[in-house]
């Protein structure tokens, strides 16, 4: 059984190609992602009875940003939370812990890329 890829290194490389090798610009996008992600995760950890639509949007943003930067596993997990919230189900603490771990892993993978060196 093959496991889906957790991080696509070529995504950042392609972003560099698409933006005319503007490392500074792509780095700004990455920094925005790293800065915004914890707040989005915090919104997902809102107490029971919180605004599910706001949780859905937070999960959507996290999934979308992760996908743009090649963080495929994080994107998949956040998307699953988004669908749950859309269907009226608040994400469980355990599910959000997995999302948080995927975020840490994604940031580490991005930072380890040669393009920043």
């Amino acid at each position: 059984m093959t496991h889906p890829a957790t991080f696509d290194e070529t995504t950042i490389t392609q972003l560099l190609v698409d933006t005319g090798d503007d490392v500074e610009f792509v780095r700004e996008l990455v920094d925005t992602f790293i800065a915004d992600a914890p707040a989005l995760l915090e919104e997902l950890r809102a107490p029971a009875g919180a605004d599910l639509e706001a949780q859905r949007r937070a999960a959507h943003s996290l999934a979308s940003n992760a996908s743009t930067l090649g963080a495929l596993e994080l994107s998949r997990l956040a998307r699953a939370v988004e669908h749950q919230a859309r269907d009226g189900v608040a994400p469980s603490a355990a599910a959000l812990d997995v999302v948080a771990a995927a975020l840490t892993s994604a940031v580490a993978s991005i930072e380890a890329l040669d393009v920043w060196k």
Partner: protein
Amino acid sequence: MEVTRGSRGDVTGLTTHEAAATGADAAPHGPARVLVVDDGEINRRLLGRLLEQDGHIAVLATDGEEALAMLRRGEDPVDVVLLDILMPGIDGQEVLRQIKGDDALRHLPVIMISSLEDITTVIQCIEGGAADYLQKPFNRAVLRARLNATLADKRLRDREMEYLDRVRALTDAAVALESGDFQSTELEEIAQREDPLGHLARVLVDVAEEVKRRERRLQEQVRALTIQIDRDEQQSRVAEITSTDYFRELREQAHDLRSSLSKGAP
């Protein structure tokens, strides 16, 4: 609202890689003003940059309210809107509904931005008047192809609307010509065109001038005839008076008087 300008007009200042990325086929329909509406900073800025790379001007709005306010102000109109579906406040679907419900905006092409999972909403948006959709994460070639196809349709429609405006101006001119209110200056611009409409405008202006010339000639003839009639009428009245018995008597009396005066003269 943020505006970023494309660099295609200044290719000499770019690196070889950038120059290749901004090739002549990047924007075959010319630079466009593109409104990007996305609450997500990363996607909004990335789209702005990709558009800029192709020589377009990207106008960035962070939510539906800002986008609608900008569109309704009508300053610096945009050619196309890239609209994210899921946003806080007024979402993309509602922004699209308001654009398509506004007479001044409904012809503005809108490309929806969606994730793969939004496909049901995308279908609803296309049924609601969206021109196309773009999936996140963005693929530059797909963005370019869909934007260029949408711009081609927009440019064609703009030309058709301009043509219809000109046809309307010509029919108005024909009505004015019939009622005598025609001013050839109204067709000056259309008459400059090298197409059949320009030809028709020139014919109409020539006809109008010929009608005016003939009208002036007729007026001159009428004036000359009036003078002639007045003179003839005067002569006929004189003839009428001089042919009366009373006038004859008076003339005889005058004759006699002149005779007696000349006889009596020393």
